[in-house]
């Protein structure tokens, strides 16, 4: 694992050098969502008994921000390196594909967690801090950032142009995060869409994460952990196979 620390450090330094864009901006975006939706819906919606809409929304927003930023970190780093051509700097050294994977994944997870922490910190103003199950919080944060970080690696390797990556982001990642119960409970959906949601792994991630905050959820958090864990293993295995084959990186 000789080259891993340097690649991990480089990936960390990369997003930290543009922290306003990579951390502050998503925190502000999440804050805007919170202001608008809690203003409009606070009086009208009570998803779980005894839980205010704002308290319901906060974990959803934290999770959505983590998911999007973990994806964004690995995918944009790779596509930029490919477009610039400086991807050769990491292809020439004796880095193994496992080191490559872990470095990009690790930085994506850290970026996701930092953004999540930032969003949570600013929402403390609006919802009183509560955390009945911190263990679940940790488990679902790591799992979610890991899954989306790995998906970001796949997208970054696959995309050959910025617009292809943007399509991936706009037509897959964004709908997946928006339609997975960030703003609503799936119990408010028609039965068909409720059933569909149970096949969406991101739903389990957000639902389980919310359980850590409010102690109530649509699905059993253990089931969520199982689904999330299986997803992470499958996607990681696929990403590693992709890296090992040299797909789109080595001709």
């Amino acid at each position, binding site marked *: 694992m000789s080259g891993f620390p340097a*690649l991990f*450090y480089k990936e960390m330094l990369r997003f930290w050098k543009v922290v306003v864009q990579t951390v502050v901006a998503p925190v502000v975006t999440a804050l805007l969502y919170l202001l608008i939706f809690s203003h409009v819906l606070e009086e009208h919606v009570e998803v779980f008994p005894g839980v205010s809409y704002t308290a319901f929304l906060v974990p959803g927003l934290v999770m959505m921000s983590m998911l999007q930023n973990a994806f964004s970190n690995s995918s944009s780093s790779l596509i930029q390196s490919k477009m*610039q051509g400086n991807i050769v700097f990491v292809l020439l*050294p*004796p880095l193994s594909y496992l080191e490559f994977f872990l470095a990009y994944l690790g930085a994506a997870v850290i970026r996701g967690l930092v953004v999540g922490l930032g969003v949570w910190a600013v929402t403390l103003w609006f919802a009183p801090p509560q955390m009945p199950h911190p263990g679940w919080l940790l488990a679902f944060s790591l799992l979610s950032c890991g899954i989306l970080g790995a998906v970001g690696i796949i997208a970054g390797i696959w995309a050959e142009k910025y617009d292809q990556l943007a399509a991936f982001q706009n037509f897959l990642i964004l709908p997946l995060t928006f339609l997975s119960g960030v703003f609503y409970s799936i119990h408010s959906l028609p039965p068909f869409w409720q059933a569909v949601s149970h096949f969406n792994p991101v739903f389990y991630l957000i639902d389980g994460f919310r359980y850590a905050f409010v102690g109530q959820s649509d699905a059993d958090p253990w089931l969520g952990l199982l689904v999330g864990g299986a997803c992470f293993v499958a996607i990681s295995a696929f990403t590693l196979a992709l890296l090992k084959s040299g797909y789109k990186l080595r001709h």
Partner: protein
Amino acid sequence: MNPVSAIRVSGLMKRFRATQALDGVSLDIRPGEFFGLLGPNGAGKTTLISILAGLTRADAGTASVMGHDVVRDYRAARRALGVVPQELVYDPFFNVRETLAIQSGYYGLRHNDDWIDEVMHHLALAPHADKNTQSLSGGMKRRLLVAQALVHKPPVIVLDEPTAGVDVELRRSLWDFIAGLNREGHTILLTTHYLEEAEALCGRIAMLKHGRIVACDTTRRLLQHTNEHCAQLRVDAEALPAPWQARLQRDADGSLRFDFSDYAELENLLADLRGAGVRITELHLHEPDLEDVFTDIMQRA
């Protein structure tokens, strides 16, 4: 004979869609050589280098660096190799020193500051150590690429068109540095379009065309390959002695061109001119250089 070659490729084949980029290339470069790889654009030079560097995988054949197969033993092979890529690439997130420290880290070198300082000094990058790579001039970016290829002190250094776009003065200092590395025992593999550079620096040269090696020999023997000499002269008479009229071509500027392979022919020409009372007002001799050899070999191949 040294059993371990610095670079050894054997029967390399690579096809990109309709183009056969490499069509059975074999080469054996010994440690300490300064080896030139020449050929027109699209001859397969960069493909060959990419296979050595592990950026491209060969369809058939094998390649090794310091005895390490570039596929099976890729970590050892890459550790032994420093590549200066042809494209002027850089990472705009970092400054010069960060770039070199990170690149060292990829090879597992944590405390490489002394060597980084030395490389920056030799490549005149030291005054720019804290500059963002984006603000560097083209020549500086090129030298940073050279520095990046050297952070792990590789025994084998590959330079793909390293002086394209570098001004004359910098080119000279770059070559002094590379030649110094070669004297210290580093093996150098160079591709360049500047044939006079190859002629001056390389001990051995291979020429590629359409993915095949069409010539591979010491620079000295390649230069002897053609014994086509040429004399350019002006005379004060319109008419030439009859036997020579067909042999001399009149160029557009009025001078006469005489191609010969043996100096005795020139001797005869001069004697006949003197005998006919023709006075020579100007005379230039052109010895064959690598460019003539290159052109000749490429046309025949």
